[in-house]
């Protein structure tokens, strides 16, 4: 491990770090640049950040993104938790296929899911007259790729719980619902929160599924930024992007806190400390 202190090695790591952060940094810096065009620094300014809150298109997209993220997370969490509880520690081989099926949206390239969703929505519209492209279709798409992540995050935690805790509750006469409410759910709560954060981040970050499934009036922030890149970048977009970076940082930090509680749970430490 002495190699890790070699100057050439550290230089490479530093270069990689700079490479990784170059795009983020350039956008953040430009958002505070008082110049409207170009990369030359002309002085510090908050005007683009202030202008954000007066831009109706941006505000609408922000609202859409938020609604989409919250609604899809609220649907994906119970569905994913149900899958974790239902499959539990069951080792039946048939479930392996189901587990792979559930993981599909996370395993396949998202453009495949996006195209499939588009075709599904159009087919539903032409045969049943129900689904229009727009927020509903986007929610459907987002929940579908959030469920595998919920199942993984909550499932990992669930598998580490000592089954003795739930069995004890059952032996003491609790109905399954009570076991869930009073024993399982509290023990899973931190991982559920982490899963929720992941879901929100996935939804806010998604471009391709939203892009394919969007309709009039359902522009989300990534779609707005993409359109703006084609039309011509404005500093307000840089300001918006800066806030997205900031939100990503918050989510990353919050999620890392959650995973600090990763310890095996059992009778010896009653899961509460």
């Amino acid at each position, binding site marked *: 491990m002495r190699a890790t202190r070699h100057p050439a090695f550290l230089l490479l790591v530093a270069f*990689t770090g700079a490479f990784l952060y170059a795009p983020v940094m350039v*956008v953040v810096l430009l958002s505070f640049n008082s110049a409207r065009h170009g990369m030359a620094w002309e002085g510090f300014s908050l005007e683009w950040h202030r202008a954000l809150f007066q831009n109706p298109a941006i505000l609408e997209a922000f609202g859409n993104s938020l609604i989409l993220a919250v609604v899809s997370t609220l649907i994906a969490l119970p569905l994913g938790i149900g899958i974790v509880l239902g*499959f539990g520690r069951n080792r039946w081989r048939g479930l392996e296929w189901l587990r792979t099926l559930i993981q*599909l949206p996370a395993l396949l390239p998202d*453009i495949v899911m996006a195209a499939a969703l588009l*075709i599904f929505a159009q087919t539903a519209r032409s045969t049943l007259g129900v689904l229009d492209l727009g927020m509903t279709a986007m929610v459907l798409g987002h929940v579908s790729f959030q469920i595998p992540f919920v199942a993984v995050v909550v499932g990992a935690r669930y598998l580490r719980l000592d089954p003795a805790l739930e069995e004890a509750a059952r032996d003491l006469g609790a109905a399954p619902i009570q076991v869930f409410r009073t024993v399982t759910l509290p023990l899973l709560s931190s991982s559920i929160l982490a899963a929720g954060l992941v879901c929100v981040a996935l939804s806010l970050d998604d471009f391709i599924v939203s892009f394919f499934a969007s309709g009039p009036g359902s522009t989300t922030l*990534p779609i707005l930024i993409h359109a703006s890149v084609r039309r011509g970048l404005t500093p307000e977009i840089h300001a918006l992007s800066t806030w997205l970076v900031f939100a990503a940082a918050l*989510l*990353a930090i919050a999620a890392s806190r959650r995973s600090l509680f990763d310890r095996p749970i059992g009778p010896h430490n009653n899961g509460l400390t």
Partner: protein
Amino acid sequence: MTHNAPSTAQSTNRQALALLPAIPGVCWILIFVLLPLALLLAHSFLSRNDASDPALPLSVASYARFFGNTSFGFDLIYPQLLVRTALLALLATAAGLMLATPVAFWIASLPSRWRTTALVLIAIPMWTNLVVRTYAWQLLLGPDTPLARIAESLGWAQPGEGLYPGLLAVLLGMTCDYLPFLVLPLYASVERIDWTLAEAAQDLGATPPQVFQHAILPQILPGVAAAAFLTFIPALGQFLIPDLLGGGKVAMLGNILQQQFGASNDWPFGAALTVMTLLSAVGLLILRKIMSAPRSDSDRRPASSSV
């Protein structure tokens, strides 16, 4: 894995009831994932009517077109597109791995309270919107930027043109995008390295490169494979980066695919392209499953399973 053999009817009922909470989730996946994929497959066998809408009769025209039967005569542009896309994805993954591996080792060498901070710092770009990270490369690589001037002096770009749009820009964008997705699984693998093996190799007289090759590399190979697959498979469907950084000069499978659902309005062909992407991804997933299956008892190493 033991097969749960229920011994009484009651036990079977209990097991069946235990599966109950999973039903809503499974139903969702069946209706909103499996059914769309089935519809996708069906769509690829449709033809187009006069209004350019997908319609019966069923036909394999879209696949014929993919495999060479284009309107300009026999031309393998689409298989070539798939191969080009795969090569680009491979290059970006390889470049990313070369950068990510030192970072993973470096993080593992930090004292533990700094490790979390380093990991969070790696995660932040990962959680930042790809559209933002990609258009930023437009700014960094356009004409008159420092990076463009360096490239001009190296002869990689024409004066006044900059690196964007272009192939190198797409590669840079992809590599940068994949870095965090490579570092994290690699780090998980590096963290679990049994350093006593390296010490033993050193005691036995191995030189540092030999120590790395024989004592360390085999231990992280599963992690490397996991990271590579995790990156390469989504890279096949990459749309945004070539769209924003390729400027029409660099088209990957994803761009042509999206075109069919947009400007070209040829949904059956778009569906066929999507199915080809899907099959490639599934093929890779199966390959990964085969590669990660333990070969024999004597081959098993202490678990280093990020696969």
